[in-house]
């Protein structure tokens, strides 16, 4: 009797632990050591051209106006803090937003690329989110793919004269979902299923992460709308200062 109770207690504790912690860290960073070495190298190589373009354009802008470097610094620190804060989630636990969509709308996608790789490095070192070997893959999904999609959606919605709130919501939530699709793609490529290969495991990764990412994407969309509304109400001049980045300068 006593032994049975103990077993039930242990099992329930294990289940609680698994589901409890699964909810807290659901930002889509691929953890250290999860990708084979050749995948790490290839994803790293894919990011290099974006990085070079980003760095050279930042260098040009900083030569022209030195103050922009410090604005970029604040943007980077802000993006890091954004990802370190916990936002409320429907499961009762909390989770971390990606913040890439919001960043891309405010500062433009190419600036987000350079800032993104720095932020991801800091996240790996200071928060143990992601890792050094998976830095390339994470940069591609969170600092390149996500921001470009968000920016594209935002621009298209503005061209179609959609209400601003709708544009912001769609850009933030779809870029979150896209980031998670790219991550699932990277994982499936690295770990194809025994039967059915890449496609089967891609579907599986998508399905499993959808549980945590679907509600998160909607929450992140709502949050982005509230942030942009707040900024428009209180900080018109600062926003026009940021247009500097958006106008294709970087």
């Amino acid at each position, binding site marked *: 009797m006593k032994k049975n109770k103990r077993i039930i207690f242990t099992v329930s504790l294990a289940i609680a632990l*698994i589901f409890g*912690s699964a909810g807290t*860290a*659901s930002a889509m960073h691929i*953890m*250290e*050591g*999860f*990708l*084979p070495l050749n995948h*790490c190298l290839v994803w790293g190589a894919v990011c290099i051209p974006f990085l070079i373009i980003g*760095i050279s354009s*930042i260098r040009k802008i*900083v030569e022209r106006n*030195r*103050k922009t*470097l410090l*604005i*970029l*610094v604040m943007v980077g*620190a*802000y993006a*890091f*803090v954004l990802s*370190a*804060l916990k*936002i*409320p989630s429907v499961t009762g636990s909390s989770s971390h937003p990606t913040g890439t969509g919001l960043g891309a709308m405010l500062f433009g996608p190419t600036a987000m690329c*350079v800032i993104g790789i*720095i932020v991801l490095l*800091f996240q790996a*070192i200071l*928060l*143990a989110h992601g890792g*050094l*070997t998976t830095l390339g893959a994470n940069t591609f999904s969170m600092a390149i793919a996500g921001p470009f999609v968000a920016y594209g959606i935002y621009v298209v919605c503005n061209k179609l004269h959609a209400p601003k709130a709708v544009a912001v919501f769609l850009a933030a939530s779809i870029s979150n979902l896209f980031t998670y699709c790219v991550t699932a793609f990277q*994982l499936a490529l690295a*770990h194809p*299923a*025994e*039967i*059915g290969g890449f496609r*089967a*495991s891609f*579907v*599986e*990764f998508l399905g*499993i*992460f959808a549980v945590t990412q679907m509600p998160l994407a909607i*929450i992140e969309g*709502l949050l982005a709308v*509230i*942030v*942009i*509304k*707040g*900024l428009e109400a*209180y900080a018109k001049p*600062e926003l026009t*200062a940021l247009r500097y980045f958006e106008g294709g300068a970087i």
Partner: protein
Amino acid sequence: MMVIDKLAYSSSLRYKSPMLKSAFSVGSLLICVGARSFIVSVIILAVMAGLTVLSSKISILRYLKLMFIPFGFMVLSTIAIVVNITDWPMDLVSVPIGNKFLAISSYSLTEGARLVAVALASVSCLYFLTLTTSMLDILSVLKKLRCPKIMMELMMLIYRYIFVILDMAVAITTSQNCRLGNKDFMTELRSIGQMLAVLLIRSLKKSSLLFDSMESRCYDGEINVLSEHYPAQKRETIGVAGFLVSMLAIAVLL
């Protein structure tokens, strides 16, 4: 919130050569990920965990807690790798669902177990670096590796300002909580959104203040600071090289 940073500054290995520490941890990390072998991972995990716990004087429980940070991701993706959705049953476990099977084969199970071992060992390598080396030392290593100057500048300043902005965020959140800003889900969402908006405005203000103060101190696009130099002792270098070579040998031979 920044436990890792705090622990790095109080580690007893803090004043060892950052170059050597990085070579040790990144070298083992690469061997571990490249070899993907069970034995190498277990050895590296044991060595790294032992060194980290001893040098930073944290309890094993606390170290385990840190190891649990990427746990959610690991559990979810390992489930995706271990469990297959197939049309026919597999050799270990098969649960029929409709006309499909949720199946685990012995191959996928060993594959999953090996992946978990490699991932945990890699995380322990990362923790060895981050729990013994402060961010500024890591940046000095990047500088020696010829990282672009503008990136270095950005990183140095971003690291400095993370704490300023984090302090602001925590203060705003605390005052929101005092005023029942988290009483239900929608209110909490709204308060966090407002906090993020105000945070951005204040950070931009801070950046313009920073520019003024740096301009008045003759800032010309480059910050030159003296860095402290911690040379590696011969004994330590030999030890690290020996460890890496023996790990490489085990990985190649087995």
